């Protein structure tokens, strides 16, 4: 009995880490930059497909391939923010702009889906590695590397981001810009540059989350649209803009879902993250960890 609970919780933790990796980029772009990038899940899927491509064509290990595509996504995010700022953000009132931006990124999400289906076809794609079927046993708890490796990568990602945002000049500046853009110019920083970097980072996390995604389960181009709600609710649960908060929120959702599957019935799992979200909103609207 206790074995089942333990194993269930461990599975929840492992998948929760992956959820965090998916949501963390959104937490940065929406929480820090106030850009409601609903195309984020689309970029995750794109990252997954690129990883798949590198893996299939050059036989690269997916985790390595994921590292290779990060610069591509970073540059893309960097430039995309420049364009967004130039043609959109600087021309709108902040709140009005955010509403239109939702529609703008909805358009972007559609374009991603179309381009992915044109380039890669609409089949389910996944990457299998020599390590993905290995299972380690710790007493009665079995941990499969297919789940554990993405979890570790996510943890690493969260740690790196946490250190980056609290220990480096540019990371602090990004936080500063998020909190008071005008004051940030007065310390000699260029908010536009800082935001471009942050958006690039957000995209890089999307890319790597995609890599982890394609290692975990098969993906197809229209998955982005369907994954949207959960990613957003985790980002909000964690308190937008806080890497550690997002990680904890991901774990909470993962564990709760896992326990629901085991003890209530798997047909209700989809509702878990949303019910948690509604509870949190009723109790503490700013999420769990907003300082």
């Amino acid at each position, binding site marked *: 009995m206790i074995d089942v609970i333990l194993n269930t919780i461990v599975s929840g933790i492992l998948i929760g880490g992956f959820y965090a990796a998916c949501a963390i980029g959104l937490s940065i772009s929406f929480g820090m930059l106030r850009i409601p990038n609903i195309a984020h899940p689309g970029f995750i899927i794109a990252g997954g497909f690129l990883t798949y491509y590198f893996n299939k064509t050059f036989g690269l290990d997916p985790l390595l391939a994921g590292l290779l595509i990060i610069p591509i996504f970073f540059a893309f995010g960097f430039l995309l923010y420049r364009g967004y700022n130039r043609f959109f953000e600087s021309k709108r009132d902040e709140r009005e702009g955010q509403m239109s931006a939702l529609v*703008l990124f909805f358009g972007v999400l559609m374009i991603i889906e179309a381009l992915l289906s044109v380039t890669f076809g609409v089949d389910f794609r996944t990457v299998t590695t020599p390590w993905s079927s290995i299972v380690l046993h710790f007493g009665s708890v079995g941990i499969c590397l297919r789940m554990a490796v993405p979890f570790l990568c996510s943890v690493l990602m969260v740690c790196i981001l946490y250190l980056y945002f609290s220990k480096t000049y540019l990371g602090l500046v990004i936080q500063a810009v998020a909190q008071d853009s005008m004051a940030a110019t007065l310390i000699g920083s260029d908010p536009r540059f800082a935001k471009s970097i942050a958006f690039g980072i957000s995209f890089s996390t999307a890319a790597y989350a995609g890599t982890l995604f394609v290692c975990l389960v098969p993906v197809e181009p229209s998955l982005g649209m369907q994954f949207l709600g959960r990613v957003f609710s985790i980002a909000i649960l964690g308190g937008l803009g806080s890497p550690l908060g997002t990680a904890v929120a991901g774990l909470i959702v993962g564990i709760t879902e896992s326990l629901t599957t085991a003890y209530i019935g798997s047909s209700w799992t989809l509702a878990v993250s949303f019910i948690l979200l509604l509870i949190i909103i009723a109790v503490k609207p700013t999420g769990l960890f907003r300082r």
Partner: protein
Amino acid sequence: MMKKVSFELIIPGIIVACIGLLIAKLVSGIYFFYVCYAILQMIALAAAWNILGGYTGYVNFGIGGFFAAGAYTSIVLLKYYEVNFLVAILAAGTVSGILGLLIGYLSIRVRGIYFSISTIAVSTILQMVVLNTPFLGGAKGFKIIRPPAFPPFSNYIEFLFLLILLISFFAVAVSRLIEKSWIGRSFLAIKDSEQAAETSGVATLKLKILATVVSCALMGIAGAPYPYFITLLEPYSAMGLTLGTYAFAAVFVGGRGCWFGPIIGAVLLGGLQQSVTVMISSEWNILVVGLVIIAFVLLAPNGVVGLLKGRKKPVLLKKKDRV
């Protein structure tokens, strides 16, 4: 007020119904009615969305949920209890309105993206409830056989067309009524600054809840004839994000906070979607719709209405920089 309602709703309503009947008599191609149905449904949803989102600034993302709530209510009543269609429509509106009340109370606590995601949450939980309730068809859904056409219609779709025409007219008329009354002005105040509105005596809470209830009820009403249009009502296609997001995008393409914006937007976007689907039979059609949406958002910040008015975009300083 009563007089105003009769002038704005009933008389034009009768006129619209007559025009609808006339069209049904004159136009012979059935395809026309299918396209019109899809576009009119989008108009109804967009107008309904506009009441909350356009006037008060609360973005409801769960359109699909409220729409499907209406559709399910109507099909359950029609199939199991064999009620009158009008009763089914009213019941659909009531059920979605009650759900709207729930969302309305949510809006007391949160706004912005928090509110938007909560609406997705409510809509997803609804989907889960439907999936887990055999009475509501569960995952299998309802298969529906359309009743035979009855005079004066030569085809059942003509009847559905007239129905959705009246529904969309009703949705637009209600939003116009609200816009032109003191309620509309209070909504604008809420949109601009909720605190300021509150302090200057606007009962923001009641009004917000009113807006949410009306908006959601109209979405439910728009969903009522849908089961007969689609003939298979199942939770995944009825409650998906796509339907709602198009309606939402239509408001932005047309112009927010203005009663005829959603009409223009839905006709443009719905028409584009329909025509692109039949003109480009490949993945590229999604690409085209995506690009057009982006083009509109970038080039026409206030929608087509903004362009037509040719008004200069007001120069708004960011709040922090206001002196």
